[in-house]
């Protein structure tokens, strides 16, 4: 599909249309002109009107208009226009998939669920106004929990933008245990940021007291980090010569923001990326394949509607892979609890059923389909992805 071709075709259509429009106006002008001429003639008559003279002018006008035939001309123009205007849509249909709703399945697709998903998406993006507007217009029940979670998060983020770590500190303190369970160093990072700000703008005394109060608790677990930070006190006022200048970099604020978002979402059971945007991204990647499939199955609408599994794979980008899927290279079956993937001594992996088949369910050895190594079923061990 060449966009240049489309643009050229469109320009041609518009040019012709402009011409056509101009000619329509010319026809209207012509009619007006004829009437004006007749009008002038009538006004120019001097004698107390002999009806015959007046009548002849009028008849002449009527005849003239009949001859010109403006209605026919206009009709002709419109027919030409229709032909002109029909070319571009045909080109569009050729260059694009003319009907992507062919890939839509006519199944129970509850729009209430979709509304709620979209509203939650807006809340996750911090667009509270928009989310509320949607809930209102759609008449959906309010998503109180999710909204308040994200509202809290955005309040923390807003404060961070002006380097106010207060709300963040509150939240981190409240959720300290869970954060530690996740192995997050968020609290240390927060104090580090605050400390760096003091080192940049405050006195040595301030920095020292802050280090004593807030950084010391982390000393035992993160001695390296702690040492680096404390050393910076010496360079308060002369930060250009500080050997740990990278600690002063403003990028740490951005990193911290991203980390706090991640942890926040994780703790309230949400994903970092808006799930709606992930699903749509998958849809955009997958729709071309599904359309091809729908076209191929056009005659088998019933089968299309009721299929339990897609007959063709849909390739998705690696950031859209959330689960390990093992496909046995021999049977093309997917690994499952009943049919787990097994590692053979030659380091190749087959599904259990394939191994059973190859060994004919005995303890006899069989040859790996990939390399000439022989193995027995007992030598294979189950893998857990």
């Amino acid at each position, binding site marked *: 599909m060449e966009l240049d071709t489309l643009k050229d075709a469109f320009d041609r259509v518009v040019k012709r249309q402009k011409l056509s429009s101009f000619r329509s106006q010319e026809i209207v002008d012509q009619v007006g002109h004829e009437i004006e001429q007749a009008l002038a003639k009538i006004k120019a008559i001097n004698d107390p009107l002999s009806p015959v003279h007046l009548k002849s002018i009028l008849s002449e006008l009527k005849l003239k208009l009949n001859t010109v035939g403006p209605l026919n001309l206009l009709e002709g123009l419109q027919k030409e226009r229709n032909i002109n205007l029909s070319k571009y849509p045909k080109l569009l249909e050729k260059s694009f998939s003319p009907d992507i709703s062919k890939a839509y399945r006519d199944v129970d697709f509850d729009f209430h669920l979709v509304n709620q998903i979209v509203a939650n998406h807006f809340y996750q993006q911090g667009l509270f106004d928009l989310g509320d507007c949607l809930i209102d217009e759609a008449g959906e029940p309010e998503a109180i929990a999710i909204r308040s979670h994200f509202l809290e998060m955005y309040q923390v983020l807003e404060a961070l933008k002006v380097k106010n770590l207060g709300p963040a500190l509150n939240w981190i303190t409240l959720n300290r245990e869970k954060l530690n369970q996740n192995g997050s160093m968020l609290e240390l990072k927060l104090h580090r940021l605050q400390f760096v700000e003091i080192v940049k703008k405050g006195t040595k005394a301030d920095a020292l007291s802050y280090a004593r109060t807030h950084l010391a608790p982390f000393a035992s677990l993160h001695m390296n980090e702690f040492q680096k930070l404390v050393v910076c006190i010496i360079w308060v006022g002369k930060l250009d010569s500080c050997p740990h200048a990278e600690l002063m970099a403003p990028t740490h604020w951005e990193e911290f923001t991203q980390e706090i978002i991640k942890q926040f979402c994780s703790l309230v059971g949400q994903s970092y990326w808006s799930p709606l945007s992930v699903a749509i991204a998958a849809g955009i990647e997958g729709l071309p394949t599904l359309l091809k499939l729908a076209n191929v199955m056009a005659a088998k609408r019933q089968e299309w509607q009721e299929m339990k599994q897609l007959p063709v794979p849909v390739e998705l980008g690696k950031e859209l892979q959330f689960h390990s899927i093992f496909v046995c290279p021999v049977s093309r079956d997917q690994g499952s609890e009943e049919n787990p993937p097994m590692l053979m001594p030659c380091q*190749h992996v087959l599904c259990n059923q394939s191994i059973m088949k190859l060994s004919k369910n005995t303890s006899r050895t069989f040859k790996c389909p990939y390399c000439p190594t022989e193995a027995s079923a007992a030598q294979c061990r189950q893998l857990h992805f």
Partner: protein
Amino acid sequence: MEIDPLPNGTGSTAATTTTETTVTATLPTAVSNTTPSSKLSQLTESLKLEHQFLRVPFEHYKKTIRANHRTAEKEVSSVISSVADVADSNEISKDDAVLSLTSLVSRLQGLKRKLEEGSRTENLQVQNCRARLDHLESVDAENLSEWNNVRFKRILVDYMLRMSYYDTARKLAESSKIEELVDLEVFQEAKKAVDALKNQEVGPALAWCAENKSRLKKSKSKFEFQLRLQEFIELVRAENYMRAILYARRYLAPWGATHLKELQLVMTTLAFRSNTECTKYKVLFEPKQWDFLVDQFKQEFYKLHGMTLEPLLNIYLQAGLSALKTPYCFEDDCTKEDPLSQENFRKLAMPLPYSKQHHSKLVCYITKELMDTENPPQVLPNGYVYSTKALKEMAEKNNGKITCPRTGLVCNYSDLVKAYIS
């Protein structure tokens, strides 16, 4: 996993509203990708999905052209027959003739002004068409993430317009500055008819049918008939039997030739009362019929304007859910990053088919990254598998020791065995 840390769009999505609850920091919306070349080829494929995007403004342009033509035709026709009248009248004075002709001239001048106005409207629509073509052309490797973001918003606005959530649609379009790329104006035409139908009035919908008479006829639409039937039923409901019969004679009879069965069914309601228990006719009196008319109107409207019959959001969502759907998504420990870990998404995905894989795709439990030939899977003595990257990192931090995060088993990095999976 590559994270796109930029706020979406121009950061103006939330900044423009005045309440204190909106905040300028935003989470990433669209997932960005790391391999430019495969992305671009995928992009070309995905551009082909944008038929509606270009078709709608063009159909709108055609409509304006047709309307301008009809205006010209009507007025010129009227002027010409007035001239004929004046010319044919027997007793007309000079003054009267002058008066008539002068008024005709001014009518034509009025027409000219209208046509010029119409021309200006046509130009605006041409600009809109061109703007959209330019928008499709504008996407490249650098602005891909941004462009995808805009596409996502277009899809959302389309959904809201179709569901009649006009305020939300407009707010989103305005705050993202994508008014040119969405069809707010076109849907304003639908709004009148939809609102009226929701109020149980057929007026605007009938007007719309009249406006688009020839195209509806071409597609053999029976929508006007359905509107008329509903009006008839309302007359029967109000027990205005005489009026109902007159109405039927005038408006329903012409459709008898092609839709006799339906006509008969509805006419029979004359014999019943609106609170009849007879199921066949009871259903015709239910208020649900009005909802059905709203849906019908929308379908006809979409067809005429070059839009898909289903909201874009639903189409993409179904495709995405199916592509993502695996049996693992429904397990309790499904990662939160998978949309199908959420109840709403699971419910929507229920009737949709599972995805299929032809090749193994393995995700490291620790890093969530793909385990492929560059980052091969390694097997612990207990059969648990993790990526080489994760295990190397762990070993470096722990004197060459590996601890399985799921079972707690400790072993050496040297005890690991590489697995070869195609």
